[in-house]
C-alpha cells in the first residue's frame, strides 16, 4: 500500500523523517519496500501571479505574460497555453529549474520576444497526464513562495507491504495507529460532523438484505444536491500518491475515505434505482450486468449482488454497474458502506477475473464495525466539497453480533517463548497503544481484550508477537539451545547420494539439475509407451506438466541445449526423485531417488596429447563398474530397455530386480530429443541396493612371494561374447590363479573375417614360490577349456 507521509502526519505526530519512519515501521513488521518523493526536485519552481497577458505581436497562439514571482522579481514569459489569463496564480519555473523530463529552463527568445521562465502544466511537473493547459492554482497562494511547499508536493510516498494477516493496515489510519504505538502518541481521528436535512432517509428509500451470511452489514445514507466537479487539489494529490486517478469529487471522496479508513464505499445514482430501493441478494440464474468497465458480466447464483427492485446494480464489494454510475446528471446519491464475506468476494472476483481496490480489501477481511464511521466521514467530505445535503439518519442492517475476543494471558509466557523478560509496565503500554484492553494487570494472569479490527490475534502467542514486534526483535538476546540427546546424521539414501556424487565428480562428470516435471509425451519420446505420467492441473507451460519417470529427458534436453551452443563434450549426472503412480488417483506416487548419467561427444579435452575420440559404450560401462559396489550379488546381463540401442545395452540385476540399465541411447530417442551424434547413458536405481554401499572392507594379507604372469591369445568366433570366456576362466581361479584380465581384442588381418583374437593376461600368486609345472598345468586346463567350450584356437 502506498501512503503519503504528509497524510499520515495529519493523524499522528511523527518525530522521524520519512527514512527513519520507514525503518521503524519495517522493524515493527510493516515492511516499507520503497520511499519515493511525490514530485522530483522542484527547487526554482515558484507560485507566480499573472499580472498581465498580451497577444504576441508575431504569433497568433502565443501570449506575453508579466508574471509576479514575489521576492524573485517580475518576469516576462511567453506562454502558449490557451487557458492562461491575467489574475491567475500559476506554477512558474525560473532559470535553472529542471523539469522532471530533464529539460532545463534557460532564458530564451520566442519569435523575437524574450522569455525568462515557463508557466507549467500538471504534466510538465510530472504529477499527472493532464496537458490541456497550464495549471491554475488556488487563489490564496502567495506569489514567490516555493511551489512544492505551497501545494504539498514536498511529500514522500512510502510503499508499505502489508502481510495477509494485517488487513487493518490497508488504510492510512491503520498505519497511523502503528506509528502511534511506536511513538507513544495518539491518533487524531478525522472529522465526521455534518448537518442533516430534516427529512429522514427512511422516507425516501429502503434496504433489504436477503443474504445476511454474505452481507453481514449494510450501512447506507442518502444525499442530494450533489454538484459534480473536480475534487480539491490536496485530495487529488493524495489519491495520485496512492496510485489512484482523480475523477470527480464524488468518486474521489469515496476513494479517499476508502484509503483513509480501509472501508470501501460505493455511491449509486439514486434516480437510476428502480423503486428507489436496494435489495442485497445473490444473482439469479442467467442474470447479467454491465460493470463500470463496460464489460457484460455473466452472473452466477454464488455471487452477491446489490440490486434495485428488479436488477443487479453492483457486484457487491467488487465493482459497480455502469447504469447506476454517478454522472453529471446525478442529483441524489445512495452511499453504501457495507461488509461482505471475504471468501465470497474472493470467489466472485476470481470467477469473474475481476479485481478492484475494493475487492482486494474485502478479500482480506474488513472490520464490520467501521461502516458507520466511514459513511459519516464521506458525508462530511461530500458536504464540504460537493455541496451535498444528507437526509437524516442512516439505514444500517447489521447482523454482526460478534463479541470481542478475550485472551487469558500468562505473563510468564513472554519469557518462556522469547527467552527474555520485558517489564510488565512496558507490555501493558504496548498493548494499550495497539488498542488492546488489559484487565487484572496486577496479577500474572491478565485478561486481554482484542480490538475488533484485529481478528488475527486469537491466542497468547499472537499477543506475544504484538509485544515483541513493537518492543523490538533486536532487543531479544542471542543464545544457543542446550545440547539435546538428538543425534545428527542423515539417512542412508542421502549418504549414498553424497558418495555417488563424489565419485562421479572425480571421474570428470558434472552434476546437473533439471525440472522434476516435463512434457507429457516424455515417456513416449523415450519409446517407453503406454506409461502415463502424473499431470499437474495448473501447469505454467505445456513443457512443464508431467512428473518425470526418468532423469533421462532432462539430461538429454541438456545435451541438446549444449550441442546447439557449440559444446563438444557434455558429461552430466543428476540425482533426483522420479514419481511413479496412477495419473488420476489421490494416492501419493512412489518417489524413488535415481541417478542418471549421460556421456556425449569427446571423451577427453581437446588437446594435442589426446586422440580425437568420442565416448563409447565401454565408457559408461566402466563408470558403472567403478561406481557400483563390487558385489557378487550384482548380475551384469544384457538389457531390453526400449530407450537404448538393442545391440548396445546392459542391465544390472540384484535379487531378481533391475537396479540399473545402461548403454547407447536409441537413435530414435536421440532424434526425439534433438541430440546429434551418439549418447551413452545409464539409469541407476540405487535406492534398491543401498545396503551394498555399506559393506565394510576386510583386509587381505599382501603377497610375500613373487607373482607369475602369463598371457594367452586365442581366436574365437566374432559374435562369441568375451564375457562368457571370462566367466569360464574366472571359474577356474582359486588357490593360485588370482586374476584374469582381457588386455587386447583384435579383428582384421591376418585373423579371418568371421573371427576375432582375444588376449588374456593371467596372474598367479601363492604364499610360496610357484613352480612352472603347476602354473603350466592350469594354463593347459584354461586353453583346453576354451578350445572345447568355445571353439577357440590358440593364436
Amino acid at each position: 500500500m502506498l501512503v503519503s507521509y504528509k497524510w499520515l502526519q495529519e493523524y499522528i505526530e511523527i518525530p522521524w523523517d520519512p527514512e527513519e519512519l520507514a525503518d521503524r515501521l519495517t522493524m515493527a513488521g510493516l515492511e516499507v519496500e520503497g520511499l519515493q518523493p511525490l514530485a522530483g526536485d522542484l527547487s526554482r519552481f515558484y507560485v507566480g501571479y499573472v499580472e498581465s497577458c498580451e497577444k504576441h505581436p508575431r504569433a497568433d497562439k502565443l501570449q506575453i505574460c508579466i508574471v509576479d514571482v514575489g521576492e524573485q522579481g517580475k518576469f516576462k514569459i511567453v506562454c502558449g497555453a490557451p487557458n492562461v489569463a491575467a489574475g491567475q496564480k500559476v506554477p512558474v519555473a525560473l532559470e535553472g529549474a529542471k523539469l522532471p523530463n530533464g529539460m532545463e529552463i534557460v532564458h530564451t527568445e520566442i519569435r523575437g520576444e524574450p522569455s525568462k521562465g515557463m508557466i507549467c502544466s500538471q504534466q510538465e511537473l510530472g504529477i499527472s497526464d493532464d496537458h490541456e493547459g497550464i495549471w491554475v492554482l488556488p487563489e490564496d497562494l502567495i506569489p514567490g513562495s516555493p511551489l512544492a511547499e505551497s501545494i504539498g508536493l514536498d511529500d514522500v510516498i512510502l510503499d508499505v507491504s502489508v502481510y495477509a494477516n494485517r488487513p487493518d493496515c490497508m488504510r492510512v489510519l491503520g498505519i497511523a495507529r502503528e506509528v502511534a504505538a511506536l511513538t507513544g502518541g495518539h491518533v487524531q481521528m478525522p472529522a465526521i460532523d455534518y448537518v442533516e436535512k430534516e427529512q429522514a432517509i427512511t422516507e425516501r428509500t429502503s434496504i433489504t438484505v436477503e443474504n445476511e451470511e454474505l452481507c453481514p452489514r449494510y450501512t447506507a445514507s442518502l444525499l442530494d444536491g450533489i454538484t459534480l466537479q473536480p475534487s480539491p487539489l490536496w485530495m487529488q494529490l493524495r489519491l495520485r500518491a496512492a496510485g489512484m486517478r482523480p475523477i470527480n469529487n464524488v468518486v474521489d471522496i469515496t476513494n479517499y475515505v476508502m484509503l483513509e479508513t480501509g472501508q470501501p464505499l460505493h455511491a449509486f445514482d439514486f434516480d437510476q434505482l428502480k423503486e428507489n430501493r436496494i435489495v442485497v441478494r445473490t444473482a439469479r440464474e442467467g442474470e447479467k450486468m454491465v460493470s463500470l468497465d463496460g464489460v457484460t458480466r455473466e452472473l452466477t447464483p454464488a455471487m452477491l449482488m446489490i440490486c434495485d427492485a428488479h436488477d443487479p446494480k453492483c457486484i457487491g464489494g467488487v465493482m459497480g454497474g455502469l447504469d447506476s454510475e454517478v454522472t453529471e446528471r446525478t442529483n441524489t446519491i445512495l452511499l453504501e458502506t457495507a461488509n461482505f464475506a471475504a471468501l465470497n468476494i474472493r470467489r466472485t472476483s476470481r470467477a469473474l477475473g475481476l479485481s478492484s481496490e475494493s475487492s482486494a480489501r474485502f478479500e482480506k477481511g474488513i472490520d464490520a464495525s467501521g461502516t458507520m464511521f466511514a459513511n459519516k466521514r464521506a458525508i462530511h467530505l461530500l458536504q464540504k466539497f460537493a455541496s451535498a445535503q444528507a437526509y437524516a439518519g442512516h439505514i444500517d442492517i447489521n447482523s454482526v453480533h460478534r463479541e470481542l475476543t478475550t485472551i487469558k494471558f500468562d505473563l510468564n509466557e513472554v519469557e518462556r517463548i522469547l527467552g527474555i523478560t520485558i517489564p510488565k509496565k512496558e507490555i501493558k503500554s504496548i498493548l494499550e497503544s495497539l488498542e488492546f484492553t488489559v484487565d487484572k494487570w496486577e496479577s500474572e494472569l491478565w485478561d486481554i481484550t482484542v480490538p475488533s479490527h484485529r481478528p488475527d490475534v486469537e491466542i497468547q502467542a499472537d499477543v506475544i508477537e504484538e509485544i515483541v514486534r513493537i518492543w523490538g526483535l533486536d532487543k531479544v538476546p542471542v543464545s544457543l539451545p542446550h545440547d539435546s540427546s538428538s543425534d545428527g546424521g542423515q539417512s542412508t539414501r542421502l549418504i549414498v547420494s553424497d558418495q555417488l556424487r563424489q565419485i562421479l565428480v572425480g571421474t570428470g562428470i558434472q552434476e546437473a539439475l533439471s525440472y522434476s516435471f516435463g512434457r507429457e509425451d516424455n515417456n513416449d519420446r523415450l519409446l517407453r509407451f503406454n506409461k502415463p505420467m502424473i499431470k499437474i492441473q495448473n501447469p505454467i507451460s505445456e513443457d512443464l506438466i508431467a512428473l518425470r519417470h526418468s532423469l533421462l529427458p532432462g539430461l538429454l534436453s541438456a545435451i541438446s541445449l549444449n550441442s546447439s551452443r557449440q559444446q563438444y563434450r557434455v558429461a552430466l549426472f543428476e540425482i533426483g526423485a522420479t514419481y511413479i503412480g496412477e495419473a488420476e488417483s489421490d494416492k501419493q506416487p512412489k518417489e524413488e531417488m535415481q541417478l542418471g548419467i549421460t556421456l556425449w561427444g569427446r571423451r577427453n579435452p581437446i588437446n594435442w596429447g589426446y586422440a580425437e575420440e568420442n565416448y563409447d559404450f565401454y565408457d559408461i560401462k566402466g563408470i558403472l563398474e567403478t561406481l557400483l559396489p563390487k558385489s557378487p550379488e550384482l548380475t551384469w546381463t544384457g538389457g531390453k530397455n526400449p530407450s537404448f540401442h538393442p545391440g548396445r545395452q546392459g542391465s544390472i540385476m540384484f535379487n531378481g530386480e533391475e537396479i540399473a540399465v545402461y548403454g547407447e541411447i536409441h537413435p530414435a530417442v536421440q532424434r526425439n530429443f534433438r541430440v546429434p551424434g551418439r549418447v551413452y547413458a545409464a539409469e541407476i536405481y540405487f535406492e534398491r541396493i543401498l545396503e551394498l554401499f555399506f559393506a565394510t572392507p576386510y583386509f587381505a594379507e599382501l603377497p610375500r612371494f613373487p607373482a607369475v604372469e602369463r598371457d594367452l591369445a586365442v581366436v574365437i568366433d566374432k559374435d562369441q561374447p568375451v564375457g562368457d570366456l571370462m566367466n569360464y576362466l574366472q571359474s577356474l581361479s582359486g588357490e593360485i590363479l588370482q586374476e584374469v584380465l582381457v588386455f587386447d581384442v583384435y579383428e582384421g588381418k591376418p585373423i579371418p573375417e568371421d573371427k576375432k583374437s582375444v588376449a588374456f593376461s593371467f596372474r598367479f600368486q601363492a604364499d610360496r614360490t610357484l613352480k612352472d609345472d603347476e602354473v603350466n598345468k592350469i594354463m593347459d586346463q584354461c586353453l583346453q577349456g576354451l578350445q572345447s567350450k568355445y571353439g577357440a584356437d590358440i593364436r
Partner: protein
Amino acid sequence: MQKKVQDIRENALEACKGANTVQKLNEARVKFLGKKGELTLVLRSMGQLSPEERPLFGKLVNEVRDELESSWEGREQELAAAEEEKRLLAESIDITLPGRQINRGTIHPITKIIDETKKIFMEMGYEIVEGPEVELDYYNFEALNIPPDHPARDMQDTFFITKDLLLRSQTSPVQIHTMEKKQPPIRILAPGKVYRADSDVTHSPMFHQIEGLVVDKGITFAHLKGTLQLFAEHMFGPQTKIRLRPSYFPFTEPSAEVDVSCIICSGEGCRVCQNTGWLEILGSGMVDPRVLEKVGYDPSEVTGFAFGVGVERIAMLKYGINDIRLLFDNDVRFLDQFTS
C-alpha cells in the same frame, strides 16, 4: 728403467687428459695399461734388474699403475657425464605446450549450498531428513495452520495434481511428518525441492528450500536468533550480522524475516542490497502452538523454532548469479564455473 717408467707415466697422463671421447680414452688405456700396453711391457722387462732392485721397481710400477687407473676412472666419469648431458639436451621438448588435462567434474551450485548448510547443522546435532515432494493438502497447508480458502494457498501459487494432492510449495510439511513420527527433543534439517507456479529472473517453478526445526522444553526465540547468527557466520563469513524483522507466516508466532548484512558491500549500501545494506535470506519464527497441538504435542510443555532458507537465493547472492534460470539450464559453461 725408472726413467722409462716416469716417461710412460707422463705420456699416459697427458693422453688421458687429452682424450675427449670415451672411445679415445679407452684406446689410450689399451696403449698404456692394456695387456700389451707400455707399462705392462716395462714390468715384464724387470728380469734384467738385480734381485735387490726388483721389489723397489715393482712397487714403483704398481704405484704408477694405480695412479693411472684412477686418472682414467676420473676422466671416464667426466666424459660420461658430459656425454649424458649432451644426450639429454638433445632430448629437450616444448614445455610450453599445454598439459594433458583430465576432465574435472563439478558439483551443482545448489548442491554446494545444501551441502554447506547440512555440514553446519549436522555439527550442531541436527538430523538431515526428507519428505515427499508430492504432498497431501493436509501436510502442506492444513496442519501448518493454513485452513481452506486461506489466501496463502492460492491456486496461482501452488501446483495441484488432484483436489487433495499437490506439489509441496514449501519444505515445512517435513516439520509435520517429523513431529508425527517422533517425540521431542527434535532437531532436524530438511533440504529439498519445492514448487510454485512462478517463473521469471528471480523465480523458478521448481526451487529448493532448507527447513529447520527444533522442538524441546525451553526452546526460545533467543535460541532461534543464536542459531541463525551462527548459520549466517558460517555461510557468509564471520563478520556477517543478522537482522530480524517481524513478519507473518501462518505456522509460526512470532514470525520473523531474517536479513544478513549485505555480502557484497558489508552493509555500506550497494545495488545488490538496493542500498539498504541488508539482504533477506530466510523466514523463521517460533512454532505456532496450534501446529504443535495438531501433532499431539503439548504446547505448554514444549516450544520450538523453525526456519526456512531459500537455497537459490543464497546461491545467487553468494556466487553472483543474476538469473535463476541459469541454475536449471545445465549449460556446461555455467557448470564449469563451480569447480572448487
